[in-house]
């Protein structure tokens, strides 16, 4: 009865692995939410860090604002460039070789670990270009990090557009640009926005690239692009690493996760939204 036993073991394996995965998700979320809820309050969200060492009391308002600004800069800088590249590769590029070169470069960049991107940002943006540890340096570094992510998804979406419909549009004597703006982009808009928001989620959660390029232990809400910023992931790292306050750390982790999930939910909603016909 080897067969029956094998089948049984096989099923056990599948059930067990799925159970482990679901248990892990449940545990991680439950752990952060339950512990974080205890020390979160409106005051925590809306006030500056206080106490000795700094952060032991008070709130995380500058970190929340800082993280949002960093994400915004990263998304803005990366998405313009990534979209242009995706459009170029899928609509204008005539040579297969050039296409492969672009893909290899983008893949290489996707393979560069975030800390090495941070290292680049530190040396080039902060030191050589003299931008200092600032909102701008950190935002751009994050932008470099999420560029490949956006490019790959945007290109995939553009390429999935029905070729026959493109041909029909060109056959009317209409230009590529008009076709792109009136037919293709309206169709791919949801996918592209979803890719950008998802990338924004990554940028917001990333600590490694900003340790050296702009995130600091304490700063007020940034006034300009050249001021240093607080960021949620870095703040969480400092609170735990330096053993400042466990309660505040739980609460910070919860805020960070809620923000990222909010972004992800927007992205998922966009992906699933039926593409309505415009009038």
């Amino acid at each position: 009865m080897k067969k029956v036993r094998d089948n049984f073991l096989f099923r056990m394996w599948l059930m067990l692995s799925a159970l482990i995965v679901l248990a892990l998700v449940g545990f991680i979320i439950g752990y952060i939410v339950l512990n974080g809820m205890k020390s979160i309050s409106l005051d925590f969200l809306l006030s500056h860090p206080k106490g000795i060492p700094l952060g032991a009391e008070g709130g995380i308002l500058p970190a929340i604002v800082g993280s949002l600004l960093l994400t915004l800069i990263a998304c803005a800088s990366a998405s313009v460039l990534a979209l242009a590249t995706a459009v170029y590769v899928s609509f204008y590029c005539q040579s297969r070789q050039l296409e492969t070169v672009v893909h290899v470069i983008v893949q290489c960049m996707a393979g560069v670990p975030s800390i090495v991107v941070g290292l680049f940002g530190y040396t080039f943006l902060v030191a050589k270009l003299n931008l200092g540890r600032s909102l701008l340096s950190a935002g751009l570094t994050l932008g470099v990090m999420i560029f490949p992510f956006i490019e790959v998804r945007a290109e995939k979406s553009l390429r999935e557009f029905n070729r026959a419909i493109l041909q029909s549009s060109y056959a009317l004597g209409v230009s590529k640009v008009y076709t792109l703006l009136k037919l293709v982009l309206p169709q791919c808009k949801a996918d592209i926005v979803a890719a950008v928001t998802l990338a924004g989620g990554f940028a917001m959660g990333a600590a490694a690239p900003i340790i050296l390029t702009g995130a600091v232990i304490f700063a007020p809400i940034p006034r300009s692009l050249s001021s240093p910023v607080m960021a949620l992931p870095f703040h969480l790292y400092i609170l735990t690493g330096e053993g400042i306050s466990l309660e505040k750390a739980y609460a910070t982790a919860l805020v960070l996760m809620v923000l990222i999930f909010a972004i992800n939910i927007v992205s998922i909603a966009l992906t699933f939204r039926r593409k309505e016909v415009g009038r």
Partner: protein
Amino acid sequence: MYRVFDRVFTQLVKILTICSLLTLVFVIIFIFKESVVFFKAVPVLRFISGRSWNPLLAADNLSILNIILGTLYVSLVAIVLALPIGVGSALLLAGYVKGQLRVVIRGIIDVLAGIPSVVYGFIGLLVLVKFFETTLGLSSGESVLAGGILLAVMVLPYIISTCHESMEKIYREHAPSSQALGVSRSYLLRKIILPESRRSILAATVLALGRAMGETMAVMMVIGNAPIPPRLFGKCQTIPSLIALEMGMAEVGSLHYHALFASGLVLMLMLLVINLILYFLKKNILLQ
């Protein structure tokens, strides 16, 4: 009317594309250049085969074999733990879960991918490391194993989604004819779907390995960061954590600074090889 606009738009797209490609190439060359300076002082082979890392001593003491081994060890532990669980879940999803439920479960798994690595590190430190110390009675819970387990959780969603996509496709192809033969579903999964998706399992492994080796924050918080030969229950150091920890201390332009770039380059080359393998695997999967 549209003619002028067309031309401007087209040129804009081209210029922006050139900008982004130049930026990417520049980043890559920049890192390369900053590392090469170090290799003028210390030969490459010496750098990757020596076992001591002490930036306060002479240049000869900057070598990263232990750190490379640490990086590989932690990542391999992660893969070994994550692969069976990931493949099992993907099979279950492809074969047994249908419709809405599948979308929901995929969403839940994607949640894992969305959690920032600092949060993983935080939980790792408070739960895993503490568990090792209190329950298992180790003197220090910060270890290769802690890093490996944490990384395993982090790479799970990547493994599951890569495997699941191709398994689902294969399942849809073969399920009708297999059902027609009256064969049980688990037999189909075991005899056809699993062997047929070995390529995508390989691709998932490579992808996960790349993720694991490049991960910084989570790993850094639970491995103890000591550049000693790694043991499963001992502390170790990985290249990303080395860079993250020491970059702030190294003066720009010093040998220490260039050594950090050099280790970044070594990591990138390892990842590059891994990513190129993945690129070609993907191409082959599409060709199939």
